[in-house]
C-alpha cells in the first residue's frame, strides 16, 4: 500500500492541473462562440500565415 503515498498526490496534482487549464481557457474566452469555433476550423482562411 506504500504506492498510495505516490499515487494519491499524483492524481490530485493531475486534477489540479486540469482545473488550472480549464481556468486558463475560460480566461481566454474559449466558450463564447462554441458553434463558430467548430466551423472556423473548416475554413482555409489564414491557413498559410496568421492573420496580421
Amino acid at each position: 500500500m506504500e504506492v498510495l503515498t505516490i499515487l494519491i498526490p499524483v492524481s490530485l496534482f493531475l486534477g489540479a492541473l486540469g482545473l488550472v487549464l480549464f481556468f486558463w481557457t475560460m480566461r481566454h474566452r474559449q466558450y463564447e462562440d462554441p458553434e463558430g469555433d467548430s466551423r472556423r476550423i473548416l475554413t482555409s482562411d489564414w491557413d498559410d500565415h496568421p492573420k496580421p
Partner: protein
Amino acid sequence: MSLAAEPETRASLSACPACVAAPSAERIAQMAAPREARLMLSIPAAHCAACISTVEQGLEKLPGVRSARVNLTLRRVLVEADPQVTAASLIPHLDRLGYEAHELDAGVLSVTDTDRQGRELLMRIGVAGFSMMNIMLLSVAVWSGATDSTRDLFHWISGMIALPTVAFAGQPFFKSAWRGLRAGRLGMDFPISLALVLASGISVYETWMSGHHAYFDAAVMLTFFLLIGRYLDHRTRAIARSAAQELAALEVPRAIRLLAGAEETVNVAELRVGDLVLVRPGGRIPVDGVVTEGTSELDRSLLTGEVLPVFAGPDRVVSAGEVNLTGPLTVRVTAAGKDSSLSRMAELVAIAESAKTRYTGLADRAARAYSPLVHLLSFSAFGYWMWATGGDVRFAINISAATLIITCPCALGLAVPAVVTAASGQLFRRGLLIKSGTALERLAEVDTVVFDKTGTLTMGTPEPTNLGDHPRSVLDVAAALAGASGHPLAQSLAMACRAGGVSPADVTDLAEVPGYGIEGWHNGRRVRLGRAEWVGAQSLDVTATYLALPDGTVAAFTFADALREGAVEVVAAVKAQGLAVKLISGDAPGAVRDLAERLGIADWTAGALPEDKAGEVARLTASGRRVLMVGDGLNDTAALAAAHASVSPATALDAARVASDIVMLGRNIAPVADALRIARKSTRRIRENFWISAAYNVVAVPIALVGLATPLWAALAMSLSSITVALNALRLK
C-alpha cells in the same frame, strides 16, 4: 487561436476581478487616444463556415474597418472601426453580401463582454467537476472494499476536497435559498442547500467516527449536476435578453423644440402643450399635435396599418408614432406626456403585461409540490427511526440525509432547463429569439393565431406591379426622377427599375416638392412624378404614383404591398396544425380582403383601431381561447401584450418588440409555425422528464427510507436520472 485572443489578452492583463473593475493605466491611456467605434450587428442568416469568411472578409475590405469578428453562436458580428464608421453604413454592404443585418445597441457590448454571472457559474461547474472526478476515484476504492485505516484515509482526503468545493460551488444555491427563506418562500433551492449541508456535515462526523459511509461524492455530484442546470438556464436567458431587448432603438425619445426661432434638442418628456416641434423628413413625430407649417406626407402604417402615405399640410392633426416622409413639418403640441396616444398605449401594455407575469411555469409548479413532500419524507424518516431504534440520533440523521440526497433534485433541476435550451437552440437556428422563460409553455397552449397585416404578413413596403406596361423611354425618365426622391413609392420604383436594368434618363434641376412629388427638366421640358392632381392625372383607386411627360401624356405606376416571405406557408402550416387563424388589420377592407383570399384566411377584420385589436384578443380569451398574436405595429402593441403569447418581427417598433415574447430576426415568417410545433413538443418533453425523475424516486426513496441506501446507490440514482433527463431533452428535433 492567437488571433482570437488578441483583443482579450489586452483586457485580461489585470488578472483579478477587482483590478478589472478599477480603471487601469492602459484604459486611461485608451480613453485619451481617439476612440475607435465598436459596432455590433445582428446577422440572423449566418449559419456556416462560409458565412463567417464572407461576412468578415467583406467587412474588412471596407475603408475604416479595422477588424470584424463573427460570433456564430449569437449570430452577431463585432466590428472595430474608425470613429466615423457607423452601423448604418455597414448594413447596406452586408445586404449586398446577402446578409440581413440589424444594429445592436452599443451598450450591449459592456453587458455581453462581462457576462460575469455566466462565467462565475462556469467556474463553479469546473471546480465541482474536477473535485467530483478526484473524489470518485477515492470513492470507487472504498466501494470496492477498502477497509479500516485505508478507508478512513480516503474519506479524509475526499472531505478535504469536498468541503471547500461545496462551500464555493454551492454558493448560488445557498444564496437563493437564504433569499427565499427571508421572503418566506420554500423554493427548490432550500431542500438542495439542506441536502448539501446535511450530506457534508454527516460525512465529516462519520469520517471522524471511522464510520462506513461518507457522502462526500454525493454532495459534490449534486452540486455539479445542479450547476449545469443553472448554467443552461442562465445561458438561454442571457442570450435572449441581450439580443432581443437591446436591438438598437428605432425611436429616440427626443424632439427638436423651436424656441424663438432657435432649435434645441430636448427629451420628449419635457415638452409642454403649445410648444412648437420641428420634425425633419424621415423622423418620427414625437407627440400628438397640429401641423402649423410645411407640407409633407406621413407614413401611418405603424399606427394604423395603412400602407398608403397620407398628405399632411397646415392644420392637419398628427399623432405620435407617425413617420414624416418628404418635407420638414412644424407641429404644435396638443397633448404631451401622460395624455398622448403613445403613452395611453404604453399604459395598456403595462396592464396586460402584469397579467402575463402571473403565469406560473411548469418548473415552479413542480417545485411547489416537490419541496414540502421531500421535507416531510425526510423528517418522518428521522422521526420513525428515532422511535424504532430507541433514540439512535446518528442512525436516524444518516437515514434522513440519505433520503434528502437520493430524492435527487438534480433531475428536476435539469428537467426544464435542458429542454428549454434544446428548444430555444432549435428556434434560434430558425431566426426566432425567445425573450420570456415561460414563452414556450404558453406557446404550446395556443389554439388561435391572430395575424396583423401590414408589416407582418406583408412587408409593409409597396412594390410596383405594372412596370412591364410602360415603354422603355417612360421608364428611363421615371427612374431618373424616382431615384432622387425620398418618398417610399419613388424609392421602391427606383429600386425596381435598377433591378430591371433601366438606365436613368438625363434629367436635370431635380426638385422635390414636399407633399406632392418631384420634378425636373428632361430635354429642355418639365417632367413630374407624384400625386395625381399635381401632375394633372385621373386618380386611380389603387396605390399609384403618376408621371407627367412633356408631350402631355401621363403614365401611372401602380403598387401593391409585397407579401412577406413565408406568409403563405405559415398560414397553411398553422391551419394544418388544427389552429384557428384570424386576420385583423387597420387597413382598408379591400386590401385586407385581397390578402385574406390570397392566403386562404376566412376570418378577417378590416379597419380595426388599436383598441379593437386588443378588445378582439380579450374577447377570444374570455371565450376560453388561447391566442397567439403576431404583429409589428404600435396598433398591435396592446393586443400583443394582451395575448397568451406573442411574436413580433425585429423590424417592429420597440414597443411591440418589448410587448412580445418572441422576436423574429429573419425576414421569413414561416418559422412561426415551427415555433408552435417545437413548443408543443418541448412541453411534452418537460412533462416526460418530470415523470422520469419521479420514477427514479419511486424506486430509490423506499430503499433510502428503510436504511439500505449506500453512497454507491445515491451516486447511481443521481447520475442515471440526470443523464436520462438530459438525453430525453436532446431528442427534441
